[in-house]
């Protein structure tokens, strides 16, 4: 009995004749090393919180938290300083909203088509091709938005050289594969017996796709949409290049704005002195950004756990 216990444990030598062999010590040391490696991810989270919160607390010693969250004028380096982060949040909301307007319908249509209508062969070609879109660096999309899409829009409609419309559209294409691939995965995971049941009742392919498979995969689909949204909110290079560097509280997609991420980039490029209020602002904005995306991720985890349909 005792011997089977030891073998199942994976440590056949432990306690054998009461000796503590070198092998035993080495095994325990390795266990500790592995544990330490796994703990690095926890230290990363602690490091993020520590570096964000330290400067953010100093920031709120100088700036009223009410002004920060309710003000609509963002001018940290003007002589008449003002820290209304809503000016930055409105720009982030607008570019993300436009991106979602592109990515969600196109992504879901593509996902349903790939999962329910396309042949196996078509799917095996189209899916990786769409995923290339996700592998292209965002700075390349920024180039494309500023120097191709904006001039194209300006031919038909008068927009600023920097505008959130072009940045949002290109960002929507960039996150499209997140929606399409992850939603397709979720729909492919719906067991075939459900489809066969619906077909047996006389449903057409379209009805099976929209009324059986889509609802059954809803938790995975919502998770993919939220993931895409949180990616859009945190996206930096497209908006830094194409949406401009002009903070203002507006929902007009044709004018230059400044998102939270492009503000952080613009200050980083200017070498703000450590300890200055400008230096602290990028951490305050970073904390705001982190809190928003963290809330979205938590919501998505919760939603998946709450609404996942489990079939056995």
């Amino acid at each position, binding site marked *: 009995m005792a011997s089977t216990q030891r*073998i199942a444990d994976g*440590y*056949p030598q432990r306690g054998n004749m009461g000796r503590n062999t070198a092998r035993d010590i*080495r*095994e325990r040391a390795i266990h500790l090393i*592995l*544990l330490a*490696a*796994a703990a*690095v*991810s*926890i230290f*990363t*989270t602690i*490091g*993020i919180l*520590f*570096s964000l919160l330290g400067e953010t607390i100093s920031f709120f010693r100088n700036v009223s938290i009410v002004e920060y969250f309710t003000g609509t004028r963002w001018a940290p380096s003007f002589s008449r300083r003002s820290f209304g982060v809503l000016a930055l949040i409105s720009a982030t909301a607008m570019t993300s909203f436009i991106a979602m307007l592109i990515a969600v319908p*196109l*992504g879901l*249509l*593509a996902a349903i*088509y790939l999962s329910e*209508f*396309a042949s196996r062969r078509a799917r095996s070609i*189209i899916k990786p*091709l*769409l995923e290339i879109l996700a*592998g*292209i*660096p*965002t*700075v*390349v*999309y*920024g*180039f*494309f938005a500023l*120097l191709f899409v904006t001039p194209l829009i300006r031919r038909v409609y008068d927009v600023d050289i920097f505008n959130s419309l072009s940045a949002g559209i290109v960002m929507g*294409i960039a996150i*499209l594969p997140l929606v399409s691939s992850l939603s397709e995965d979720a729909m492919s995971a719906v067991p075939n017996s459900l489809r066969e049941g619906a077909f047996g009742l*006389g449903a*057409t392919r*379209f009805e099976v*796709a*929209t009324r059986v498979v889509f609802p059954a995969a809803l938790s995975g689909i919502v998770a993919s949409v939220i*993931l895409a949204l*949180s990616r859009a*909110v*945190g996206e*930096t*290079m497209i908006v830094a290049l194409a949406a401009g560097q002009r903070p203002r509280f507006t929902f007009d997609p044709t004018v230059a704005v400044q998102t939270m*991420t492009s503000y952080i*980039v613009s200050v*980083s490029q200017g070498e703000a002195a450590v300890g200055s209020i400008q230096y602290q602002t*990028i951490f305050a904005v970073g904390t705001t950004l*982190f809190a928003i995306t*963290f809330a*979205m*991720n938590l919501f998505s985890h919760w939603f998946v756990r709450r609404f996942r349909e489990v079939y056995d």
Partner: protein
Amino acid sequence: MASSTQVAHGGATFRTNLATRRLKGALFVALGLAAVGIGLLTLLTLIIDVVVDAVPWLSWDFITSYPSRFAEESGIRAGLLGTVWLMALTILIALPLGVLSAVYLEEYAGDNRFTRFVQVNIANLAGVPSIVYGLLGLQIFVRMMRLERSLLAGALTMALLILPIIIVASREAIRAVPSSFRDASLALGATKWQTVRNHVLPYAFPGILTGNILAASRAIGETAPLLVIGALAYVATSPSGPLSRFTVLPIQIYNWTSLPQQDFHGLAAAGIVVLLAVLLTMNSIAIYLRQRLSRRY
């Protein structure tokens, strides 16, 4: 009698509707194809646009020159060398950490609170915007550890950024190792670590390698965190060691794109072609290795 008319009636309704119901399906397929088409067409347009802009600027001189105030004399050398250095250092840091974490989570960890916490934590880290990693790097590596704006500070930041990707990919590769391997090795008297080192890791190696190459190619395209820790756009020397200041391809591209002169936009396009070529090579290697090395038992 009544029931048979009902059936006949139902049947008639069914038949009249079937055409429209099928039409809906056909329309839907058209919409789905259009959605896919818009995505792929954009990809194609992007590539053609970049290549057309890049062609006049692509030359051997472009690869071997440092950036300059004059577009004609500018090149990508500093960015290319910076990218190679940064990736080598990043992988050197992230690969052991990621693989060891994955081994711990798959082979050693019990199902307890700590393990679950680590897992949830890794999932959350994967969702943190990359620019926030930049702020972490700025505060901890650049300032507190006094690494200044060096390659090492950039590599440490990037390593933490891609760690969740490496852990997830390595775990999947390790999980795919048949448990009969472990049982056989343990039954012959090997210790847990001997089993992992001699049997589990070699078998999982192709998967781990592929995951690492894909993670590295994600890091190569990242710009935002490096901008935040202050990687320079104008560097006219090659990196000489981990503590040199540096620039990378995407930052060079960003800088050229944001200049107003059109000539620099051509340079940016040429830089993008080089960057995409590097990424394409790495991804092809990953796919090749996966097919070449993967064995089935």
